[in-house]
């Protein structure tokens, strides 16, 4: 019952995010490259979340647990690796502003953009690492 509730809650959040993205797309104003990235990256996250939930639902329907010791272990490991990736992404944005924006004339990332980049890319890293680890038996 608890597993089904978490799946329903997860699906609800994914649908809500999708609705927000669609509403944003339908909204007024011009869309620039930065805005497109802000749409595509959450879309990838939503698709990732739906795939993840579908996989869990498939197991529950087959009478199997949605998570077991291996999947939990790999999820935690993916989280730990994603945390390290987040630190590097944050450092990367700082380097971008120093090297590209200040010296090469590229547009500078403001605080809001830096936060958006860090949150979205670390989320993508977490999903990607989970999928990668789940395809392998164990990660030492």
């Amino acid at each position, binding site marked *: 019952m608890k597993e089904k509730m978490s799946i329903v809650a997860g699906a609800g959040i994914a649908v809500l995010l999708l609705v927000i993205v669609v509403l944003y797309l339908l909204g007024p104003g011009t869309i620039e490259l930065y805005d497109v990235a802000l749409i595509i990256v959450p879309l990838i996250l939503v698709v990732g979340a739906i795939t993840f939930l579908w996989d869990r639902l498939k197991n529950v329907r087959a009478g*199997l647990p949605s998570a077991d010791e291996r999947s939990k272990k790999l999820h935690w490991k993916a989280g730990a690796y994603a945390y390290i990736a987040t630190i590097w992404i944050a450092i990367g944005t700082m380097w971008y502003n120093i090297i590209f924006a200040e010296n090469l004339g590229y547009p500078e990332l403001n605080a809001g953009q830096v936060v958006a980049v860090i949150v979205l890319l670390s989320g993508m890293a977490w999903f990607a690492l989970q999928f990668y680890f789940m395809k392998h038996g164990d990660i030492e």
Partner: protein
Amino acid sequence: MRTRIKELRARYDLTQEDLARKVGVRRETILFLEKGTYNPSLKLAYDVAKALHSSIDELFFFDDES
């Protein structure tokens, strides 16, 4: 690590899904256990051995060189 899970599972005419259901894990976990690419916890090793009417040392073994 090598295991005799596949052999014993065949003896008791169990599919990977059947064994996963008996043990309470996902089917892929049984798959990776059979391939020897996942080192289970002592509890999981015991549960799998029990489900196959065997013991841990009969089910899991390491090659000498490893």
